[in-house]
């Protein structure tokens, strides 16, 4: 087969794969959402305020409720002690504070 046709076929195949993946996403989502909502309902009474993304430092575990300062709070300009601390900025409501 000509190279040009090979390329076009390959591109068409990739596009089809992309479309397939987006369909996969859609089909998986409905069931997964339902399951997640089930889990959420189970823990409803705990009224959780944060996702469990990183547990290495307390202030990054609950960023929505944490203070502005970093752990150890030794100096306002001190470097981050924990890796995830440099990825997770203080919450907007603390940053935009009056």
């Amino acid at each position, binding site marked *: 087969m000509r190279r040009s046709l090979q390329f076009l076929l390959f591109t068409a195949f990739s596009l089809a794969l992309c479309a397939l993946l*987006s369909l996969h996403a859609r089909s998986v*989502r409905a069931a997964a959402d339902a399951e997640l909502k089930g889990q959420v309902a189970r823990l409803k009474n705990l*009224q959780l*305020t944060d996702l469990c993304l990183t547990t290495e430092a307390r202030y990054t*575990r609950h960023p929505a409720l944490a203070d502005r300062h970093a752990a150890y709070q030794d100096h306002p300009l001190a470097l981050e002690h924990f890796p995830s601390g440099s990825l997770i900025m203080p919450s907007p409501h603390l940053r935009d504070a009056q």
Partner: protein
Amino acid sequence: MNRSLERHLNILEFTLSSLSRRKAKNLSLLTIYLLVVFILASLVFFVTALKREAGIILQDAPDIVVQRLVAGRQDLVPASYAGEIGAIRGVTAVRPRLWGYYYDGLIGANYTVMASDEATASSDRATIGSGIAKARNLAVGDLLPLITYQKAPLMLEISTILPAGSDLMAADLIVVAPGDFRTLFNFPVGQATDLAISVRNPKEIGTIAAKIVELFPESRPVLKNEILRTYQSLFDWRGGMTIVILASALLSFIIFAWDKATGLSAEERREIGILKSIGWETGDVLLLKFWEGIVISLTAFLLGVILAYGHVFFLSAPIFTQALKGWSIIYPRFQLIPVVDALQLSVLFFLTVVPYTTATVVPCWRAATTDPDAAMRS
């Protein structure tokens, strides 16, 4: 119509043969491009999925959380505040929450300990998250020993292990009875970590928060929409991890597109001259260059996006989660629910394919428009 199609196919054919002439160079170009798209698309998928799940998970967050500050630091809240706050018009419920962090020296992990106020919460029993169960190899019925602040052991029997599907909420969670909580932390009676307020009318949340501050000036109310905003902005394009990755990806991309755009080699110029002399029009030459740009950028884009999807939704994004986990001992699996944000991917498409193709076509403009007779004289 058919002629036009044949023309495109023929010129594409020549494009492909030209590209395969300098195989090594073009393959490395393709690889770099693919890598950039892969990283950026992974980021898009990861961030969009997380934000979405945060939205679902946090819909049961309290309307207002009241914390108390002493000299700028968070302190305990007297449970008695609940009475006065409950009296504010519009407040339907005030629940003093008991929760905190427990450091487990055995494995070096932080647990989040919460007291449940359910009637079924019985002493000496605990519900734990899947992360803890895995880290300490626990099953239902096992005993988990925690050390209280009085140096005495508190033995908790594991009554339930939360399913792995809830790990984005509760991987590190231990839910105990209030009595056990107070014993564990020597927590003073009549105090709480914070207060969870329920409000009848969501529009009133701001007003009620203001009233709370008026009543108790040392309190700091955190509103539900602020909690949600934390997670929307946590993975915003302008924040933390995303900006670091974004900046380095775009920078590398700009460097290599610039390299492409800075002029034509003498050989390429000669070739274009030859093509023009054998009957190729300006339009044909530009089409050739256009196809050259498209072949590389479209292939890189499509493959990059496909690999990114696999990376994030089938492999749980190991590249990003490593950064996010940091030094955590307990962490969620990050098995995110797949979401495809077409808008963001289109933006990515236009930010990568269009500049690259332009950078390939434009430098040839001059050479493509020169008269064919120049080739006669070479």
